[in-house]
């Protein structure tokens, strides 16, 4: 009964309510997408393991570490496995085809990353081919690479054109794993460097370290850094999570701006809904006066107004949430290398609903006060 009244009230002015709902749909859609962008930004942190450490040069990432460190790291108690690699940063055809590409020590690296699932036969052929590389499912699909294809990357940090042969395509264990990476044999890089630029051989960009137990991470990190203190290349070791977070904190300004904007969207829509509610109540002051005459109290009137606001915002919210999924999918398909992992999380949906409730609540306050405060005689007299 009460719901029927609310719906009837809400859709008394179809055009206005329709426009308001459209506005809310757009706002909730935008809010949801921006939240997803922010969580996509943090995807690398979410997927990182607490049982893996990254060791790099303490000065900054552009400085390498000697290859000889690997044996010393391996001897530290609590270390399960050591792998190493370099950020290759090559370009495939043109710059906009960006994907992360690394030179890694293949066997040890894949041991540390059980979340990259590579079929047994492909792993074998990758390990058997010095020029081989493994690519994520998403980029292989994007560029149409098939196993056995030759792919050429243009080196930026390591000059020249580099040929690689696709030997394997990995899948992520679940949706949160980045399937856009490209990695090849570190030995291939190192031997080429030794031939062309002897001074740049045997230099490692980072060490990946697996620890026997996540609780040991802090201990092992400080033990590693202690080992190389006062050497020519001091190290900085942190968990993979902290390492990835460090990258994000460099761009924290942008993340902050996006979060701020998602709040601004909600504020704008609040103004629109409040406007609608103000008009509705202005038109119906006479009705409220009649209700008061019949003996309904301020509570009932407040309930009517807030209920109406809720009907409007929740309808818009439901539509917006339904649209978020297809739009997010379209977004990833059109910009695959912008965000490797782009999933709408359930917490986003909860926030959507919370935002809708908040908007309804705030939008109803002023009109309710006006409606309750009006004297019956004035209300009946007034033509709005």
């Amino acid at each position, binding site marked *: 009964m009460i719901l029927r009244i609310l719906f009837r009230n809400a859709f008394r002015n179809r055009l*206005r309510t329709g426009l308001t709902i459209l506005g809310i749909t757009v706002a909730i859609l935008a809010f949801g997408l921006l939240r997803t962008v922010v969580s996509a930004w943090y995807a690398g942190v979410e997927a990182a393991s607490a049982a893996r450490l990254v060791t790099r040069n303490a000065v900054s990432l552009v400085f390498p570490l000697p290859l000889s460190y690997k044996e010393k790291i391996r001897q530290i108690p609590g270390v399960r496995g050591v792998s190493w690699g370099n950020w290759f940063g090559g370009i495939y055809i043109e710059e906009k085809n960006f994907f992360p590409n690394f030179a890694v020590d293949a066997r040890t690296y894949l041991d540390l990353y059980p979340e990259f699932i590579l079929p047994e036969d492909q792993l074998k052929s990758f390990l058997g081919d010095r020029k081989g590389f493994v690519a994520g499912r998403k980029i292989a699909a994007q560029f149409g690479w098939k196993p056995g294809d030759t792919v050429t990357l243009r080196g930026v940090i390591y000059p020249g054109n580099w040929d690689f042969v696709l030997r394997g395509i990995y899948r992520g264990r679940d949706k949160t794993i980045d399937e856009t990476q490209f990695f090849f044999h570190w030995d291939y890089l190192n031997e080429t460097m030794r031939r062309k630029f002897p001074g740049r051989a045997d230099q490692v960009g980072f060490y990946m370290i697996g620890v026997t137990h996540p609780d040991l991470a802090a201990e092992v990190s400080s033990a590693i850094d202690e080992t190389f203190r006062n050497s020519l290349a001091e190290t900085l070791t942190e968990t993979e999570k902290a390492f990835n977070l460090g990258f994000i904190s460099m761009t924290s*300004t942008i993340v902050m701006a996006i979060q701020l904007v998602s709040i601004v969207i909600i504020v704008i829509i609040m103004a629109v809904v409040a*406007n609608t509610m103000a008009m509705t109540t202005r038109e119906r002051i006479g009705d409220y006066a009649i209700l008061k005459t019949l003996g309904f109290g301020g509570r009932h009137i407040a309930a009517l107004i807030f209920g109406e606001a809720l009907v409007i915002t929740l309808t818009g919210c439901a539509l917006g949430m339904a649209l978020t999924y297809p739009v997010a999918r379209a977004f990833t398909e059109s910009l695959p290398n912008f965000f490797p992992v782009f999933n709408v999380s359930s917490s986003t949906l909860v926030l959507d609903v919370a935002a809708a409730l908040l908007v309804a609540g705030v939008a109803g306050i002023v009109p309710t006060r006006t409606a309750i405060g009006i004297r019956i005689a004035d209300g009946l007299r007034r033509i709005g």
Partner: protein
Amino acid sequence: MAVPLSYSFRNLWTRRLTTVLTVSGMALVVFVFATILMLAEGLQKTLVETGSYDNVVVIRKGSGSEVMSGVDRQQASVVEVQPEVAVGSDGRRLLVKELVVLIALPKRDTGQKSNVVLRGIMEASPALRPQVKIVAGRLPRMGTTEVMAGMGIVRGFRGVGMGETLCCGLRNWRIVGIFDAGTTGFNSEIWGDVDQFMQAFRRPVYSSVLFKLRDSAGFDAMKARIEKDPRLTLEARRETRYYLDQSEAMAKFLRILGLSLTVIFSLGAVIGAMITMYSAVANRTAEIGTLRALGFQRRSIVLAFLVESLLLGFLGGAVGLFFASFMQFVSVSTMNFQTFAELAFSFTLSPAIAVEAMLFSLGMGFVGGVLPAFRAARLNIVDALRAV
């Protein structure tokens, strides 16, 4: 015969709450629109001013930025003897071979580390970069471990004040000077002697060679010669061009973000304006009927309502711009994707942006008001007069 302007004004005044809500919604949209444009403008300005048109930057072919580049001593010497290099008043060539490395320093506000450009310079470097002015202390002496820091770094990072020391590369670098390079990218750098840096960081190669042209027109011939020379694996660009290329990805990102946000936001604001105008029409049906009965034409009615919604747009634009103009005091520091180094730039409000934001706001008002205005004009006089 047109409906007087005051009619539109007084209508807005009568429904103050609605007007305020609509205007504030629009103002927010204009604010966001303007700030994003200001940000892109600020970035552009920073990078354009960072370079001088007559300076040439030479880096390794295909490396894209100084951070990735390497120019060995032999190749640098070949560049040094090009005839286009200008000569200074002391008879020396205005050419410097520099080294750029990144070091991680803790940010002042969060303590999180971010990359900062450390530039090894030569005697002539300050002369080649007139944007750089010493504001405290002095230039670092060549051959020592003295360095000077840009204002952007001093403001944004810990431990880079006057007289403090940075330690990396097993040395202590004492800060003896602070320079201000205005809104340029140099403001986010730390400068010291190139030979000291090469020793400390064990970098046997330079990152780039920078020189001033003797004659601006000689650039193309020199570029062709350098890039064709079989001894060299280098490319030459005008310094202005070089710094613009550095920010391409960032500027593109800001553009995409700005465009998508603006589209979404303006939808919301246009809907808000539409709701306001439609209800204004609905509430004033009898008035409109009266006006028509008095002999005002449909044209004038359309105009009166359009003026009203344009006024809403104008107010929204004015309020939004007023608040956006305060953003000029804010500077942003973020990592440039292409160089991996921190870059500080500020919101810059130009007259063009103010005009664009205002037009955008009026456009929103117009789009929101056009349908309701025609609806008002189409009302049948008799029916309209009957309406309560």
